[in-house]
């Protein structure tokens, strides 16, 4: 079983930006609806592999994308 995490954003615009940056950096990611228990937003979140967590953080911070938090997916 792969261990996944999700990155949560304030807006779908930010999450799409993030997904593109991660793709460019060659990091496996998938956009999916944000789980209800993690956010009350109606948009997306970006699912990543937990082992990529530090790289993801780095890419997003370097790219200037604001994210709310990164949570482990149960």
């Amino acid at each position: 079983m792969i261990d996944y995490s999700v990155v949560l954003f304030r807006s779908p615009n930010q999450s799409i930006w993030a997904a593109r940056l991660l793709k460019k950096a060659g990091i496996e990611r998938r956009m999916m609806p944000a789980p209800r228990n993690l956010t009350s937003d109606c948009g997306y979140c970006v699912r990543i592999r937990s082992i990529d967590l530090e790289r993801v953080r780095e890419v997003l911070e370097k790219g200037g994308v604001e994210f709310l938090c990164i949570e482990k997916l149960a």
Partner: protein
Amino acid sequence: MEQSGIKTIYFDNAATSFPKPPGAVEAVIDYMTRVGGNPGRSGHARSVDAGEAVFSAREAVAALFGVKNPMRVVLCSNATEALNLAIQGILRPGDHAVTTAMEHNSTIRPLMEMERRDGISVTVAPCPGGRVDCEELLRSFRPKTRLVVVNHASNAFGVVQPLGDIGMMCREKKAVLLADCAQSAGIIPIDIKRDAVDIAAFAGHKGLYGPTGTGGLVISDDFDFRLIRPLKFGGTGSNSDSTYQPDFLPDIFESGTLNAAGISGLNAGIRYILSLQDGVRTVQSHKRDLAGYFIRKAGECVEGFTTYVAAELMDTGVVSFNIEGKEPSEVAWRLAERHGIMCRSGLHCAPLAHRTIGTFPGGTVRFSFGIFNTPEEIDIAVGALQEIAVEGGE
């Protein structure tokens, strides 16, 4: 181009560009037939793909204007909406605004409305010969000057204003600079950071070769966007738990479903221009060449052919002219009816610019060339104008 049997020539690219480049129409079709979702609203593939298309357009616009953060591109339905957002969003009762005597109605009308309705005051700096008099502009500033609105390139005469000089002046005077780039985006290289422009408005359907119904605002990376009040409020796909408008870009200004089909086409249009060798510079030199060729040739061959601004100031492929003794509307009508040549006559929504140049209220005939026009088409048009110049009235 064929239309109902006769070959047509399109010289009205300043109104909206035609034809669109390869890829722009296909991008709209692709959105309508394959993508199909509401950008940023749901987690399924159609919505995600639509969101990606819109984001890609933001990146393209940001690259074109020299802005780093693509979220600083606010998409609107045309340049007019973008200009209204900036003007009405920034000015408050009691404020003073400075503008130029070459403005399009899409900037001067919101300003005059706010003068009448909200008690702002407006000073119009003169533009002798078409270019703004920078000393007069400087003298127009008052302690309460909050906003300076400048038409970057005139839709009526193709004159380009010295944005960099004006930008420096605004920085010194601590006023916000809004540039109306409806006629310059995609035609003249623009770098809003270098020129100290705070906000730029663009039309997507002119020099950027997208469909009608596209346009927007570009907010410079270091401008405090909270100084702009939103023009509309509503659903954004973000902060859905709140009944208040989000306070971050671009959502704060983008309520309601975006024109994703049009924006997909706009993205392809801009990417086409960026893909040309030398990008926007290639467009500009092509348009300059066409305008120069037309002015020379018509000047030699067409009796009574008159232009109104110095040839070296016409920098965007827009040429306003008249034929002595002929009504502009009559010339345009004959060009269209007899020769299949489409252009625009009259005041071009810019009565102020025509007053400045001395062509009010009669107006001019305007040819505005696009990237797909050719010298051969100009030869045909000059031939047609030669005929019209010597014809009697009907």
